């Protein structure tokens, strides 16, 4: 990788990705002009409901999409190189693992059930750090320690089905970070974890960001987790980017009607169920998505123009972008 990136500069720039899936029922227009930038040493939250395309965006970056995916356009710049241009071999050799790594939602299925936790972390060490047997064993124990796993010797010998959800998720992180990656994509890592374990897990992520300038793209549907650890947030709806802003702007000054509706339907923002706001209608099926802005069928501010013309991602503040024709009127 050619470009050296220092803190605060963009490490990952996703520009205008258009992606479809060809399925038996028809073509699913999964991503429609998706753009997103992650800066070095930043935790960037990507939030949206089921089927909004947040996981598809992350899989596009690493080229882990299913075979029925068709990328129609767009680029993914990582430290100056366009990952979409890279061949499978190049991606595998130079990007996956030693530059970008990924952890998934349920830890119990993300680890191979027939190898012990230690063996799976050692696999990354041997690939990227050292293939000498004793040294790699020692490095594995360091990695397990780095993610604050109690009693690493014990965990080393255990099979995944003998570990708890929280411990498995940490082994996942250790396994990925052992590849010295600079960008970690976390796809709903705490959804399957208990509140107390989730809190500890988020602390580990924060420390990795502070101490080792690790950039993280954090994908979730949980607004509370977003407010907990993210610096910047991108909201997606129906395969389109609705809004991107600093975490405070998203919560205190949401400019997109969908973000606004979402925030006010989250328990905790409103203390009593009677005050909950709801967004009418249901998430659109992306086989024949609504024209123009895909939120218009459910939007109270929608007018004719919203049906015809897809609103561009407009910069309305230093770090604040929104895709809505009537963002001024949202309150």
């Amino acid at each position, binding site marked *: 990788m050619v470009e050296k990136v220092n803190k605060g500069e963009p490490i990952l720039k996703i520009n205008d990705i258009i992606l479809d899936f060809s399925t038996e029922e028809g073509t699913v227009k999964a991503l429609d002009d998706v753009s997103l930038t992650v800066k070095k040493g930043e935790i960037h939250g990507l939030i949206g*409901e089921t089927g909004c395309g947040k996981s598809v965006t992350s899989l596009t970056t690493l080229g882990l999409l299913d075979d029925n995916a068709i990328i129609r356009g767009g680029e993914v710049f990582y430290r100056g190189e366009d990952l979409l241009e890279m061949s499978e071999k190049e991606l595998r050799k130079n990007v996956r693992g030693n530059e970008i790594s990924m952890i998934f939602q349920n830890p119990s299925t993300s680890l191979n059930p027939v190898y012990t936790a230690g063996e799976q972390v050692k696999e990354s060490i041997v690939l990227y750090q050292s293939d000498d047997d004793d040294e790699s064993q020692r490095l594995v124990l360091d990695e397990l320690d780095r993610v604050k796993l109690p009693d690493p010797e014990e965990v080393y010998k255990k099979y995944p089905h003998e570990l708890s959800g*929280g411990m498995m998720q940490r082994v996942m992180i250790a396994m990925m970070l052992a590849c010295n990656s600079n960008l970690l994509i976390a796809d709903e890592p705490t959804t399957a974890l208990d509140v*107390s374990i989730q*809190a*500890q897990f988020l602390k580990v992520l924060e420390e990795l960001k502070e101490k080792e300038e690790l950039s993280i793209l954090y994908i979730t549907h949980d607004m*509370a987790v977003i407010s907990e650890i993210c610096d910047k947030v991108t909201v997606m709806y129906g395969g389109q980017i609705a809004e991107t802003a600093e975490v405070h702007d998203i919560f205190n000054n949401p400019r997109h009607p969908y973000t606004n509706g979402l925030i006010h339907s*989250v328990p905790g*923002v409103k203390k009593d169920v*009677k005050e909950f706001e709801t967004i009418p209608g249901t998430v659109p099926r992306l086989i024949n998505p609504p024209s123009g802005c895909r939120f218009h069928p459910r939007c109270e501010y929608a007018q004719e123009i919203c049906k015809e013309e897809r609103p561009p991602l407009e910069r309305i503040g230093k770090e604040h972008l929104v895709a809505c024709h009537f963002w001024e009127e949202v309150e």
Partner: protein
Amino acid sequence: MSNIVETKNLKNFFQSKKGTVKAVNDVTLNVVKGETLGVVGESGCGKTTLGRTILKLIEPTDGKIFFDGEDITDHSGKKMREFRKKMNIVFQDPVSALNPQMTVYDHLDRPLEIHNMVSSEDEKLTKMVDILNTMGLKAEHLIRYPHELSGGQKQRVCIARALCLEPDFLVLDEPTSALDVSVQSKILKLLDRAKEKFDVSYMFISHNINLVRAISDRLGVMYLGRLVEVGDSDEIFENPQHPYTKALFKSVPQPDPDEKVEAPLSGQVPSPVEPPEGCNFAPRCKQKIGEICEKHDPELKESGERKIACHLYY
């Protein structure tokens, strides 16, 4: 205020390969008529088993269950079936809670038939459409199969199925955790509306603490099969007293960038198989007052309006 449901020292132990699992360990609680009792706790705390045991879907190992003052602990077969009309449950995963071979009509028809709640086909259809409308669904949905409905719609059919028995008490076991946020708030508002319309008391079980705060009148906090704190919901959130409740609420992320989680609860959720000696929370408790916590299991005792199971408060 009379109680719709009461339990006395309810116990439910299972035999697993690794030993006895004390899922529900000596729980005494009550649900006041017309209220929503929230029950929160982490995985393995026994909240789901408690819900199912109260409904006698699982036989309790020990202790008593009262429904509307009547002891139903030993009811079974025909006698129990009468109570099936009075109390029911809504499950977490709507996808597996509906029989794929039955239409929505059949799902509502079964309860009405079993408890012959209606005398004519006309009356049955009117009742069904009325309940479906309360749930924001229409008559057109009656002839649909589960695989033709969205997650939110399926859950509304499950709630409709429970409500058409016009129960007095409904256990809601994580009814919205399998759904998206916007769908979840719709379901919660429908449940709230249904509570007034059908005059039902709820036991709302969830791991989502912010959500339970918004919907419950009273709150019970469970840890490893035990009830550690019970009381008015807002009071507990304002001023939690049991060490576990305090630590738990502190590690819950709030949807507000300025409110951050400081010291998360340390350690692991221990497994309910052969729980530790004395107070179960002792190994992770920062306010341990010494020997007594390791040795004696605290009783659930009154402390002002609240009930707490902790030696600090005797």
